[in-house]
């Protein structure tokens, strides 16, 4: 195993010729950021399929309550009732696991883990992450946490069934639900390990971005992807420890008789001794992570789409500075809006007004981002690669879901909409689908760099259309059902006259869900087929400006043979007037592009020679030692 210092050391000889790698050190306990990112990605794809399958399962119950599910008995065993239906407890545990898996394992681990790991060193010009070893630990903690979570499906009492928010007392008191026994213990342990993984990753991302940028890669020349990953990592590092504390206190309440969240409970024929705890305290702690978490999954997607939209519009990103500032403002505000999830929990209404005000302010930087994306495309020369299509889809979801957020952020409207399908539709579109599309856009765009081969274009486009239409067909009807007041997490609606009027829409949505799931198989095929049989990728297939496209087709250990190229310009010189090509990569000095330079750029030609000959701090350090 190589140490981090070896990876970073400056050497004229290409790095990967030094050492023989075994299968284990190359594919399993690897410290190479590119392999780790592929591990994250592949794990996330598996998780995505599992989470998706769970949603299909409970959508069957919601859409076709009369359906006989006896044929699932060989798989689900006693979770199929004697009448051939899903057990209500099992239904809730599927809802819970679907949420947990999708939010944490697919969109947090999968998205940040994959793209922060892959793109940070490649786009800022670094040999590897600041600590390759920590990076490896980050993946393996993620893996352990995944195993713990999935193992809870195989125990007799069933997985946690209190919703992914695991509010106590339901999650704390074992008499309240059979999932609150061992299943919940496993959930909490899994989450604690996940947080360790996330922190190890996040600290690494921040350190790498701050310290290991190549010569000339100033902060205002960072690609927006890197800005997004930086802000995401900071949010994660600040927010996840709070979830850790919440989990820890919950573990104490469950196992050691404390009363942090429990008070005055009479259940299963006995009064519990706990007094003086506050169920709301848990909600505050949970949402202090939970809300930044929304942006932890969304910001990488927004960063990825900025990069992809600019590249494929052959146009510079509009308003680079305002893009960065809006992300910073969103990141900051995400920490002071958490209680909008709690307007009607009995929290002081005055607090509700404050949080409503702060919440709605987020709409302003979000709107700025949307306008910037659209103006970037305006009068561009748009190439609709699969990645571009997914990025456009992301912006569309961001608009649709963002606008419904304005309703929910308004406490007076939230009274009726809270915990209805309107909320489900809102966050599945703005957080789920948008981030999911960001992830897919990223896979399609960087696949050539991941595996040195191209994914099939046509299958990518078909995959886009099926997913895009599938998602809108799936979640648009939910808005209507939500406006009509139908509550979420209901096993069936037959008990209420007022909710039991949408069986047609429910069947429709379940069909759309199955279609959506099936269409992901196109992607799975394309992904694995292209990995081995895809067309050989050119070095810079999308005519992109960022540094990762200056590496060889298979970047070895250390990414660049020889010195890392210095950076002379920002990453968005697309379609510059009077330029030879319609793109100028970041490592092309202004002295070579005299015809297209703007006035202020000509003046920086003078300092370029110094930059080229200078050394990084670490290079100086390595020379001395």
């Amino acid at each position: 195993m190589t140490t981090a210092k070896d990876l970073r050391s400056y050497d004229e000889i290409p790095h990967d010729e030094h050492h023989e790698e075994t299968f284990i050190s190359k594919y399993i306990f690897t410290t190479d950021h590119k392999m780790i990112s592929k591990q994250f990605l592949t794990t996330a794809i598996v998780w995505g399929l599992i989470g998706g399958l769970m949603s299909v399962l409970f959508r069957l119950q919601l859409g076709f309550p009369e359906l006989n599910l006896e044929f699932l008995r060989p798989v689900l065993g006693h979770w199929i009732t004697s009448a051939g239906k899903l057990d209500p407890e099992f239904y809730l545990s599927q809802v819970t696991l679907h949420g947990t898996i999708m939010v944490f394992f697919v969109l947090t681990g999968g998205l940040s883990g994959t793209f922060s790991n892959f793109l940070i060193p490649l786009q800022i010009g670094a040999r590897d992450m600041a600590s390759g070893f920590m990076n490896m630990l980050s993946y393996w903690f993620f893996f352990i946490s995944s195993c713990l979570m999935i193992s809870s499906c195989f125990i007799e009492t069933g997985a946690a069934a209190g919703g992914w928010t695991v509010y106590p007392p339901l999650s704390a008191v074992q008499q309240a639900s059979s999932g609150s026994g061992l299943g919940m213990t496993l959930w909490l342990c899994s989450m604690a390990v996940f947080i360790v993984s996330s922190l190890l990753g996040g600290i690494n991302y921040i350190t790498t971005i701050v310290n290991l940028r190549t010569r000339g890669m100033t902060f205002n020349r960072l690609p927006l992807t890197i800005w997004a990953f930086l802000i995401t990592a900071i949010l994660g590092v600040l927010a996840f420890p709070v979830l850790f504390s919440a989990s820890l206190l919950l573990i104490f309440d469950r196992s050691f008789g404390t009363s942090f969240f429990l008070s005055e409970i009479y259940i299963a024929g006995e009064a519990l001794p706990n007094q003086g705890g506050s169920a709301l305290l848990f909600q505050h702690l949970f949402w202090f992570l939970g809300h930044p978490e929304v942006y932890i999954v969304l910001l990488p997607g927004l960063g990825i789409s900025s990069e992809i939209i600019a590249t494929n519009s052959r146009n510079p990103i509009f308003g680079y500075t305002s893009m960065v500032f809006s992300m910073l403002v969103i990141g900051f505000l995400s920490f002071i809006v958490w209680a909008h999830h709690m307007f009607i929990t009995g929290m002081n209404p005055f607090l509700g007004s404050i949080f409503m005000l702060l919440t709605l302010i987020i709409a302003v930087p979000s709107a700025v981002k949307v306008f910037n994306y659209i103006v970037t495309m305006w009068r561009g020369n748009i190439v609709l690669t699969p990645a571009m299509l997914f990025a456009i889809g992301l912006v569309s979801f961001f608009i649709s879901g963002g606008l419904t957020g304005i309703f929910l952020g308004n406490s007076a409207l939230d009274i009726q909409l809270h915990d209805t399908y309107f909320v489900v539709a809102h966050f599945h579109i703005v957080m789920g689908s948008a981030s999911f599309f960001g992830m897919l856009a990223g896979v399609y765009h960087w696949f050539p760099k991941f595996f040195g081969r191209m994914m099939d274009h046509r299958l990518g486009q078909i995959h886009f259309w099926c997913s895009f239409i599938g998602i809108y067909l799936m979640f648009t009807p939910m808005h209507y059902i939500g406006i009509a007041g139908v509550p979420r997490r209901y096993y069936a609606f037959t008990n209420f006259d007022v909710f039991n009027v949408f069986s047609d829409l429910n069947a429709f949505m379940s069909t759309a869900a199955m279609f959506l799931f099936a269409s992901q198989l196109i992607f799975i095929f394309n992904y694995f087929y292209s990995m081995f049989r895809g067309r050989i990728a050119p070095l810079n297939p999308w005519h992109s400006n960022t540094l990762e496209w200056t590496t060889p087709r298979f970047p070895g250990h250390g990414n660049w043979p020889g010195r890392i190229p210095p950076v002379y310009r920002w990453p968005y010189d697309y379609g510059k007037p009077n330029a030879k090509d319609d793109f100028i990569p970041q490592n092309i000095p202004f002295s070579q592009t005299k015809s297209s330079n703007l006035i202020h750029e000509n003046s920086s030609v003078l300092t370029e020679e110094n930059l080229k000959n200078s050394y990084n701090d670490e290079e100086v350090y390595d020379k001395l030692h």
Partner: protein
Amino acid sequence: MVILIVSVITILILVILSSVFKIYTLIDIIVGNYKKLANSSNKINGVLLFAFVIFGFISLSFYSYVEFDRYNIAVASEHGVFTDRLFVINILVTSVVFVITQFALFYFPYRYNWTASRKPSFFVEDHKLEFIWTVVPAIALTVLVFEGLKLWSNITETPPENSEVIEVVGQQFGWKTRYPGNSKRLGKYDYRLIDPTNELGLDLTDHSSFDDFLSNTLYLPKGKPVLLKIRSKDVLHSCYIPHFRVKMDAVPGMPTRFWFVPQKTTLEMRDELNNPDFDYELACAEICGKGHFTMRMLVKVENQSDYEKWFSSQNSWLSKNPEYLDQVPDNLKELALVKTGLENELYN
């Protein structure tokens, strides 16, 4: 047999699909599509995106118009009229943004679809434009925030003095209500006193609880402020009455409340909706376990006089459970007997 046929068909379909895939790949190689930055599919996708947004707008408007009565559930409370109005204002404001941005987003890929000859705009920054589109949403939001805050503070302000106080208690998996009786004051409770008979843990050392009575249906008077005092015995629940736009969590150890004014009796609502079977319903809106979806309580709204009649005809809980007189302290026994009307029975 069925399985065999299904698997054969599946394999056949897969074989056909993979052949089609291979043929297309070969065509792409022959035509030279891979060498171009953008091939013919670029145009097709541009057209599809534009068609999608137009079709999307049309179907969204069509459905929203045709099915309006189905998803817009009738409102029966005073504040509900205002929240519904705010909802409509929000719909109007956001629709404008929605239509403009989605249209531009899907029109541009069609309009500026890749052609070799086009020179992109290289439009990097425009501070005036950015200023405008920061300020305009900010102003629109200020209006929405202001309207929302006003309404929110009205809804959550201190309930009027003459409110009808009713306690709603959630438990796995059902609801129970408690009325204050003629004293118009709810008695104290203690969760440690709960047992199978004393379901709500009435504290009989407090004389206000002597005339409290329980009900499995929530009766409400029309046109009078109602203050719901909401609590839970075990886990979180949420007291949700859709037609009144009422929702408030029930939290063990922390009583919550919500007040509102019912405006239409059940009978009036039946007439309005032309549905003789209509009834108001109270549901649980916070996940509380496997029976979450069954937590229903009937709500009946009646005229003031009918409500008073029903109210006074109810027997207090203590009078139905005289064995609990033991828990009443000696100095209050007399009062308890009078209030519950048990004295006659006892002396006769």
